[in-house]
């Protein structure tokens, strides 16, 4: 402790230096005028706001350096509002700084701890109160109260049950079934292999049953990316290769990491990049993850052509699409 080291003594608060406005009445008048000007500028700001709000054409755009071409009405009401508020503030602060007393004042701090007598009195009161409640002598009341209170909380939790349905098996299912046609998104046109050049991509969806509308929940699971390479460029095992068709390969567009749409295809490197967290997938190796936080490759959709020559899914996805979850079978 610094008990052995004697500290320097406290010289006390420094001398108060008077401001110009305190001594010189002309300076005080000048400060008063300055405050008044600031408050008036606020009024000007309000006027600018009112004028811009009612009289400036909302389709008028003007050029301001740095900002570029900007909407005049928006700028007018914005600057007007800003000025009307700012100058009240500047005025009030300038008034306080120049004219209000600036002598530093000292106030005492009292120890936050209560007086010992108060503390004792509190303890007495609390004890007396607790004793008169009689909890200590009546354990049956205590226990039954605890049980009732604990149980009473349950309805609050149970009421939340209908917030949503149970997941069931829905996370494992998509709209892709054996024979579902691949259609363009948007446009819903079926696709022939010859429609895609080597190096082309297409955003596809499963064909809808007539009369049905595609919902966002469907899109969140069904979105597929179609990519065409040369068959020789694939480095796939026999089974995965059989899921491609003449160099065309299909992957779920929903990132296996956190569900963003992975459609950023680099033709030169044959890599897919997810822009959310930069997971990178190698298309030639069935979307194997080569960089970034994704832990699993994108699920591949097995495709072939039907009798009319349009691309169809051979079978549903063999694994759940999208981000992982506890019950997911890897």
């Amino acid at each position, binding site marked *: 402790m610094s008990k052995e080291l004697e500290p320097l003594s406290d010289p006390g608060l420094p001398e108060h*230096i008077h*401001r*110009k*406005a305190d001594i010189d009445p002309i300076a005080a008048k000048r400060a008063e005028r300055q405050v008044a000007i600031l408050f008036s500028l606020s009024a000007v700001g309000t006027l600018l706001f009112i004028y811009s709000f009612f009289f400036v054409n909302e389709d008028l*755009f003007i050029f301001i350096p*740095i*900002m*570029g*071409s*900007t*909407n005049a009405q*928006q*700028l007018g009401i*914005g600057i007007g509002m800003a000025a009307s508020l700012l100058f009240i503030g500047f005025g009030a*602060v300038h008034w306080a*700084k*120049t004219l209000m007393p*600036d002598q530093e004042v000292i106030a005492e701090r009292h120890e936050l701890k209560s007086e010992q007598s108060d503390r004792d009195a509190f303890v007495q009161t609390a004890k007396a109160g607790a004793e008169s409640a009689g909890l200590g002598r009546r354990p049956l009341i205590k226990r039954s109260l605890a049980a009732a209170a604990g149980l009473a909380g349950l309805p609050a939790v149970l009421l939340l049950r209908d917030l949503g349905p149970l997941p069931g098996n829905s996370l494992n299912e998509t709209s892709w079934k054996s024979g579902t046609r691949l259609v*363009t*998104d*948007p*446009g819903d*046109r079926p*696709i*022939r292999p010859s*429609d*895609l*050049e*080597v*190096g*082309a*991509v*297409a*955003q596809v969806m499963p064909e809808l049953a007539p009369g049905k509308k595609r919902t966002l929940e469907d899109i969140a699971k069904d979105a597929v990316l179609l*990519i065409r390479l040369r068959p020789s460029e694939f480095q796939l095992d026999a089974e995965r290769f059989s899921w491609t068709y003449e160099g065309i390969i299909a992957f779920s567009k929903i990132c296996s990491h956190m569900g963003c*749409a992975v*459609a*950023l*295809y*680099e*033709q*030169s*490197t044959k*890599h897919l*990049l997810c*822009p959310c967290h*930069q997971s*990178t997938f190698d298309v030639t190796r069935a979307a194997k993850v080569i*960089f970034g936080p994704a832990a699993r490759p994108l699920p591949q959709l097995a495709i072939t052509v039907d009798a009319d020559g349009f691309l169809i899914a051979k079978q549903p996805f063999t694994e759940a699409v999208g981000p992982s979850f506890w019950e997911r079978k890897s």
Partner: protein
Amino acid sequence: MKFISKYRKHRFARPLLLLFSLCALGFTFSVATAAPSSNSMAADARSTLIQEGQQIFLKGCSSCHGLNAEGAGVGPSLIGVGAASVDFQVATGRMPMQDMSQQAMRKAPVYDEQEVAALAAYVASLAPGPRAYTNEEIKWERDGNTAEGGELFRNNCAMCHNFAGQGGALTQGKYAPTVMGVEPRHIYEAMITGPQAMPVFSDKTITPAEKLSIIKWIKSAESEPSLGGAPLGRVGPVTEGLLVWTLGLGLLIGIAVWLTAKSR
């Protein structure tokens, strides 16, 4: 020599010397990195456009792309890429590439329109490929639908080029450039040829009419003034956050310092 020693300590000596060194450095740099001059044919090259193109090709392109455009290590084969690719790459200045980095960047074109047409004709003569377009025949204003184009852009283009077409990062230093300020024909040709890392968008998956809509939306976004004030690059929350921490807090803390400072 006397001049130098006489004015050695002059107060303008150092700034002038600095200015001179900077100019010399800049001049040397610009000379060293100057693109080859577009010193085109001598007057006797009145042969067909294709032959003209071949001459230009041999002079300016064959060192990377091979004497017969078959590819030569650094540059890929151009057989089958079509006039569209040539028009896109050369008329936007991407080719000839200035430095061997990951990506050819848009810069001032080296060859003029006539030379580009010649090169395109030559490459097109090697093998069939997508044809080049002129701005006039891309009737985006008449036939395009802005709203539909926006939907298509967000579905097919925004993941690389960003929601406002400002461009975005790809892996290993590649990037999708901004699509602002690009001629309609080049946008069209890029979609059908898939330059460098960009994939091809076939006419069957994005129809020509849809491509026109995309161009119309791009042009609309390009000419759209920023409604709310300075656009801050149209890249989203990163620049917005930067502005708060610099201008926003800077102003507020500065005012707080003024507020608590002692007045004279």
